């Protein structure tokens, strides 16, 4: 198994007769990978499998060459921030980080340093000596993140890490993930907030009903499904009616709509490259095109295609 990738080889997990995940095969490279899917799609189960909190019913998992059933090796380089919003009673934020860091066998001085750094990274310095029980939801989210990053892991696994964070902290947290990814580390994130996933992810894994329905870079995933689902372009121009009629002459264009806003035309095509070439010809022919935006080249639309509108809005 590869020593620089997270690999799941035909992994299934059943809870009795209930399916957790089924036949998942993934090879996750360094960078930010987002797990996207509706509730119950298997994202958390997948993360728990990666960290050994649950064991696969079938298949093999390797995190940078280490089997998750060996916590003594795995958690030297893996940090996991779960969604469980519970903490050991009576501990302050810094005691919480410090106490669990000590379990790794690191010296007290080193643990104190790592604790201070992690707390600073998540912006909880002022609240560090307050009991975790008195923290707000966002602060609890941040202290969990601090615990996950305290030992400077090479693999960071984060279950809905942006939940409950205010916009400023959200931006800082995303910046932290990006820094990790730039350093060649793995950051695996699950999220419901699709525009954020779009913004931060190098690659996405789309899940539904315990299955991986698509994986790869957003654009790559989009191309894969292009043959089955037409791609949409939003074009702004001075002569929308003329553009609409010329566009409709292309045999790969399946739908053209004039939008109520001034100068907007929505075109659905089965051949994105062919349509872009045709647009160049139209521009040369004198149609004044102000802008072209791929209207569905993002996670949301891909997700909508693959999983369905209702679930995508959750």
């Amino acid at each position: 198994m590869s020593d620089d990738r997270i690999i799941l080889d035909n992994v299934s997990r059943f809870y009795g007769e209930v399916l957790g995940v089924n036949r998942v095969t993934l090879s996750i490279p360094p960078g930010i990978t987002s797990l996207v899917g509706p509730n119950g799609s298997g994202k958390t189960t997948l993360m728990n499998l990666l960290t050994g909190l649950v064991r696969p019913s079938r298949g093999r998992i390797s995190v940078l060459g280490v089997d998750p059933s060996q916590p003594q090796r795995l958690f030297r380089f893996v940090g996991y921030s779960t969604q469980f919003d519970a903490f050991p009673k009576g501990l302050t934020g810094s005691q919480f980080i410090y106490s669990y860091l000590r379990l790794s066998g690191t010296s007290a001085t080193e643990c104190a340093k790592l604790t201070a750094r992690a707390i600073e990274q998540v912006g909880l310095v002022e609240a560090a000596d307050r009991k975790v029980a008195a923290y707000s939801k966002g602060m609890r989210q941040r202290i969990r993140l601090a615990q996950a990053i305290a030992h400077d892991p090479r693999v960071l696994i984060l279950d809905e890490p942006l939940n409950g964070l205010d916009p400023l902290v959200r931006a800082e947290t995303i910046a932290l993930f990006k820094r990790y990814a730039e350093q060649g580390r793995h950051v695996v994130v699950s999220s419901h907030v699709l525009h954020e996933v779009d913004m931060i992810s190098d690659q996405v894994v789309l899940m539904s009903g315990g299955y991986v329905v698509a994986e790869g870079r957003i654009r790559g995933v989009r191309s894969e499904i292009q043959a089955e689902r037409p791609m949409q372009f939003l074009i702004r121009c001075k002569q929308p009616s003329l553009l609409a009629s010329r566009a409709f002459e292309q045999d790969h264009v399946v739908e053209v709509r004039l939008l109520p806003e001034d100068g907007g035309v929505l075109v659905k095509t089965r051949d994105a490259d062919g349509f872009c070439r045709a647009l160049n010809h139209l521009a040369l022919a004198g149609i004044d095109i102000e802008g072209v935006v791929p209207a569905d080249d993002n996670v949301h639309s891909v997700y909508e295609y693959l999983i369905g509108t209702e679930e995508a809005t959750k």
Partner: protein
Amino acid sequence: MMRLWCTQVLSIVRLEMKKTFFSRRGLWVYLLAFAPLLLFLGHSISVGHRREQLQQIAREHPISSEAFNSIQAGMTREEVTQKIGEPYSQWGGRNRHGEPREWHHSRYTDGTTELHLFFEDGKLRSVHRNPFEDPAQVSRIFAGVFQSYYLRLAVFFGCVGIFVNLFRGEMLDKSLHFYLLTPVRREVLLAGKYAAGLLATVVIFTSSTALQWLALLWQFDHATTAGFLSGGGWGQFASYLAVTALACVGYGSVFLAVGLLFRNPVVPTAAVLLWEGVNPFLPAALKKISMIYYLQSLCPVDAARDQEVPGLVHLLISPVQPAGKSVAVLSIMLLTFAVLAMAARLSRRMEINYSTE
């Protein structure tokens, strides 16, 4: 590697300390542990006070030992009064039913024994001599309570309360996963939790045992206490502390495993309680597959020698064929090791699935 494991075990013990010693959930453990202390303290105060009163009476109305011991059934009240004087307490009456008879109950003391005399129609019908409690008698009282209540109920349920919660409690609080996300082998985690539970139970229950012992001896003067302790009392004291600690070792391992393996610990706990409870009635071979058999074999005083012990309690506190001391210690350690080894093996398969809790 061993050094790392020891460091990790110590870190786990530090983390668990507050939960095992000071959790609100565990307050009843202190109640179980220290209830006999209150009982013995009350007994000691009451008996000590009574003894002082009687010794004062004996000083004011001295009776010679010869006269005191010469009292026997069949004597008349006048003869008794002639020999040992007027009683310090007496009361009497007349039978209301059957043949009318006049009766009297008189009490005397020589400062070491209380004499109860029952007269009927002026004739002494029965004589009861109640010597004041001595340390040997007190040690038998302690042995009875220790074997029938302390080992079988207090230490047993105390270990249930502390050891079951080490895993089960954190599963219910949904905080166990923090341990599982650290670079600690599951076996080391189990060892750390066991050490934390053991530290708490041993401190709570052995300190209670020691205090109970002190409370019972408190009624005696310094010379009597010193005489008793130097005449084998210290050995008994050390044995009780060791038996208490061994009970925590044995029961602790069982209930740690119960907390790890069972979602609802009530049924397995009841099963263990039943098994330990019916131990006296089991065939010899089955008796040996229990903690209580070996623990009772290690107790230094045979409480069952006390004539006043009721029949059922007699069975509970007296192993018919006690095991040898070294066999008993070795057996408890082996049972503990076997249970912990099985729990360690199963801990590798432990998963976090709070939604089913």
